């Protein structure tokens, strides 16, 4: 998959791409975006992962069928399919791990509100909840339980500083514009604003890029 594929995908005139291919493109985009965004992005909607899982399962079965065949021609096909399968699996794995790393880093933050919880899949939510419970338990049994009761919380916000760490939304990201749009960015010394064209690439803070990405006007690269 290369840039042309990505560009083609967002071209509204192309509708005849088969579902499987669209799923792969969607996965690739989600993967790229997840790896560059500093905060957890919403779990892909529309059962994307159910379809991906089914596709992987189908290919694995296919490989098993072909393995018995000693015909050199199908043997070559087998290697191609297996390579593709490994790459597909890598995408999924890397994507899931990237998300998990973010969830582990700021577990309490992502559990703190319904809107943030909704970004996780059911399995991720279960994982995060359980992980946090384990950690808390560990702290309690290691030292917290012998603390005075008013100091046992993990979510104090005394002195205006919350104990819950949040991701840094001001980290720089690089985005590519998908539609002509007006881009505003905050700088250190002064803020900037620019009228930009489709295909332009710009580096700016995630907090500024987020609305554009969510509106489908830009994508992370």
């Amino acid at each position: 998959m290369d840039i042309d594929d990505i560009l083609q995908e967002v071209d509204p005139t192309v509708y005849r791409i088969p579902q499987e291919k669209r799923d792969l493109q969607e996965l690739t985009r989600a993967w790229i975006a997840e790896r560059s965004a500093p905060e957890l992005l919403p779990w892909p909607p529309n059962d994307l992962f159910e379809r991906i899982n089914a596709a992987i399962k189908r290919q694995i079965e296919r490989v098993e069928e072909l393995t018995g065949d000693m015909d050199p021609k199908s043997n070559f096909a087998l290697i191609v399919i297996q390579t593709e399968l490994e790459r597909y699996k890598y995408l999924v794995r890397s994507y899931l791990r990237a998300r998990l790393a973010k969830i582990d880093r700021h577990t309490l933050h992502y559990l703190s509100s319904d809107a943030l919880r909704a970004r996780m899949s059911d399995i991720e939510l279960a994982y995060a909840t359980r992980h946090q419970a384990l950690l808390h338990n560990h702290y309690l049994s290691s030292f917290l339980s012998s603390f005075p009761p008013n100091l046992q919380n993990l979510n104090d916000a005394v002195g205006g500083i919350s104990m819950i760490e949040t991701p840094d939304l001001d980290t720089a990201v690089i985005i590519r514009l998908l539609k002509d749009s007006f881009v505003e960015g905050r700088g250190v010394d002064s803020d900037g604003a620019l009228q930009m064209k489709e295909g332009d690439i710009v580096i700016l803070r995630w907090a500024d890029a987020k609305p554009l990405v969510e509106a489908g006007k830009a994508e992370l690269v």
Partner: protein
Amino acid sequence: MPMYGDLGNKLVIHAKRTQGLAHLPPYQTELVRAVTREVRDLNRDVESLLEPFQGSFDPTQDHATACTLLVNHLSMRRNKRCLLAYHRTRTDKLEEMVWNGVDVADLAGPQAGGGRGNGPGGAADGGSSSGSNLSPQEEDYVRQYSDLLAAYKGQWTDIDLTGSLEPPRDLFIDVRVLKDAGEIQTEYGAINLTKNSQFYVRQGDVERLIQQGYLQKLG
């Protein structure tokens, strides 16, 4: 005379050092206990200071007491942060080991002989030396976390989540055997992995063995 927070600082230094190490250094049981004790003492001080006021303490009337209270208060919170940071650093490290497939029994069982020799399932670097370096609570934690991870991974049966995070380039790779690993089954028949031999195998089949240090990827 030691000051409030000195002990907490030591913990942070330990944590900082842990981050750069391949293995997990011993748990500082004494230090953790001492810092916790300091918090309790401080809290007792605060309570005894406040006692004569019967809940009607006015900071603007008595600056000296207010200042003492503030310092005590901040010291307690600082100690708590130090403790949290120390424990979190260690659990992060432990989680990383669990992800890397270090055998939990090896990590947690200080009495197990397998911890020293590299017996079957002998863990990669770090695993063997950190056997007794865990606190009992940490051993529990590792066990529970492995269960949690196994449960999460169970939802993605077709994708080995603990697999390599390097993008796969080739289906087949050259590997050299570093430690005897016995016989493994592949689609193309069984391979006997004896030390110093070299094979051309499917990467997916030997991923785990590479991670555990039995095989080395070549080229």
